[in-house]
């Protein structure tokens, strides 16, 4: 049994008019222990839904197909009871807005106690020690146990969430935009905490729209556009040898520190709503090199280099991003 998170052919569909529309379209992604995979995409690309699917938490009107395996356990189609045993324990998730993600009516300690004793048969004081250990690892002190969420700052709350995740000792952690709601300085510390966790053995799926975040901590990167993964591979590879026009466009439109003066080029057009997606390659109406063949059928998966794949008819060969590394 191999360890990690294995997403295969994941498709998430919603009812639309007479038929269905796929918000996430046949995604493949693998996260192994000790690595951080950054999943990059704009809002509306389907990345958060993908994360929810990995825990079986998609909304009831969403039809899920494909396979999501955590270590050996299948998530899709499994009963709620079995999923409850897996959630937190094997795969945990931290959410974007820490201010609303914790119950305001209970103390941090009480919430952690509930979660820890859900998965481990410990008594109160044993659970408390576990909680304290996890809090310390996340950079908080024991005093956090008796505090209510409204008494803590955003950064502290995010750490508390991470502590909750740590305490369950999962193999995989999904972090959905963990730093978006936080200050830049706090951001750096949270990211370095994630790095430490990965080094200690966790596999982390880091979801973000911010290329800079990915560049700081990820080992591998995957780029998502309108429900599909358009490019994935080793971080340096993807950044220095971006092969998909969208990835290139993203790089060119992102300001990066230390780059010196550079004109930011926006990608013309807007991200389509998944219900109005075009047939063929979803990006083709914004792509500078789209041709006839792009509008028909599925885009082929090409291997640009070892572990570096792109879904495009015309992958870009230039080393455009060399300046970014």
């Amino acid at each position, binding site marked *: 049994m191999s360890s990690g998170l294995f997403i295969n052919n994941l498709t998430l569909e919603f009812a639309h008019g007479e038929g269905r529309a796929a918000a996430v379209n046949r995604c493949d992604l693998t996260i192994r222990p000790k690595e951080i995979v950054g999943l990059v995409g704009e809002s509306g690309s389907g990345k958060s839904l993908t994360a929810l699917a990995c825990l079986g938490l998609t909304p009831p009107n969403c039809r899920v197909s494909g396979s999501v395996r955590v270590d050996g356990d299948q998530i899709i189609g499994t009963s709620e009871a079995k999923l409850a045993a897996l959630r*937190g324990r094997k795969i945990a998730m931290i959410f974007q807005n820490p201010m609303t993600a914790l119950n305001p*009516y209970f103390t941090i300690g009480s919430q952690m106690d509930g979660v820890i004793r859900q998965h481990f048969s410990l008594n109160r004081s044993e659970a408390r020690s576990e909680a304290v250990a996890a809090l310390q690892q996340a950079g908080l002190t024991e005093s956090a146990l008796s505090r209510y969420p409204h008494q803590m700052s955003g950064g502290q709350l995010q750490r508390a969430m991470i502590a909750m995740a740590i305490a369950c000792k999962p193999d995989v952690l999904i972090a959905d935009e963990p730093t978006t709601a936080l200050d830049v300085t706090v951001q750096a510390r949270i990211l370095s905490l994630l790095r430490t966790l990965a080094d200690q053995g966790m596999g982390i799926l880091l979801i973000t729209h911010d290329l800079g975040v990915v560049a700081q901590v990820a080992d591998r990167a995957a780029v998502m556009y309108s429900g599909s993964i358009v490019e994935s591979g080793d971080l340096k590879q993807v950044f220095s040898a971006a092969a998909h026009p969208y990835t290139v466009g993203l790089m060119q439109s992102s300001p990066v520190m230390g780059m010196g003066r550079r004109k930011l080029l926006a990608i013309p057009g807007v991200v389509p709503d998944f219900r109005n997606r075009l047939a063929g390659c979803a990006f083709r109406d914004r792509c500078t090199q789209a041709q006839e063949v792009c509008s028909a059928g599925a885009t082929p998966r090409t291997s640009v280099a070892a572990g570096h794949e792109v879904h495009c008819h015309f992958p870009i060969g230039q080393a455009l991003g060399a300046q970014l590394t």
Partner: protein
Amino acid sequence: MLSYFSRRLAMMGLIVLGVATFTFVLSRALPSSPVEMMLGSKPSADQIQRAKEELGLDRPVVEQLGRYFFQLAQGRFGTSMRTGQPVIKEIGQRLSATAELVTLSLFLAVVLGLPLGILAAAKRNRWADHLTRVLAVSGVAVPVFFLGILLQMVFYGWLGWLPLQGRIDSNVMLDHPVPVATGFLLIDSLMDGNTAAFKSALTHLALPTITLLLASLATILRATRNLMIDVLATDYIRTARAYGANRRKTYFLLALKPTLVPLLTIIGLTYGFMLGGSVITEVLFDWPGIGAFVVESVVTNDFPAVLGVTLVISTLYLSINLIIDMLYFFLDPRISN
């Protein structure tokens, strides 16, 4: 927090004074003169004038008001012109009857409405939910007096299971008198081991309680359902699920407190409404409570009684609202810390 509390209390005192002034002015404007009532048949002009002087009714209104406040401060609510009894004594006797009815109704409304509301939230948009919605709208739409009459028709007229009116069978009261302890017949008769009185009190309580409880049940049910649905959709419940909270029980443990705290305001409001709604019920069921007392006093222009009872009821109503607000302080961590 203490300063907030004392400010609210002071405010409440001010409003009560306002209520007293308001009702006092109103009562002086009531159509028929209380003097005529007191003096009975065809009094002479002299008699009327003397009575007015005695009662102080010929003084300017402001002076009368001042005198009234002075009396109030001494705890004297005056004497009922209808019964000749001190108003405060009348109110005391009648209050416990209403309190028993209203407390029982509210208790049942919560005990039934809360679980049903949670059920409706859990089975959202399925037939159970729609049913509770219809029940909720019906509960509010049914006129209290019509519901009472329907119940009387069915349970007394047709089935003969329950008595028509009154608080207790007068024969039972004569043969098995109940010593007054709490003023609640149910409790007092139990404490006395008086099964005949208990049974009679219970059967007499049944119909008025059901009548009074329907509207509140409907409100509490629907409010619980809506609040619970909102809570279930929050981020923090999603987090709980993400960490393995599965069984509905855990949901309802984690989701219950966030639901109950705002629900408390609604329950408090309901208690207040019942104080008012009991008027109709008491008139219909000949229940010796303050609601009926209000109507009796108003109809006979018994203004000391009207003043007294209005003050008492309003103060109660305001106090309940204040208590609910205070409770929030203790229950919602975001406010108390």
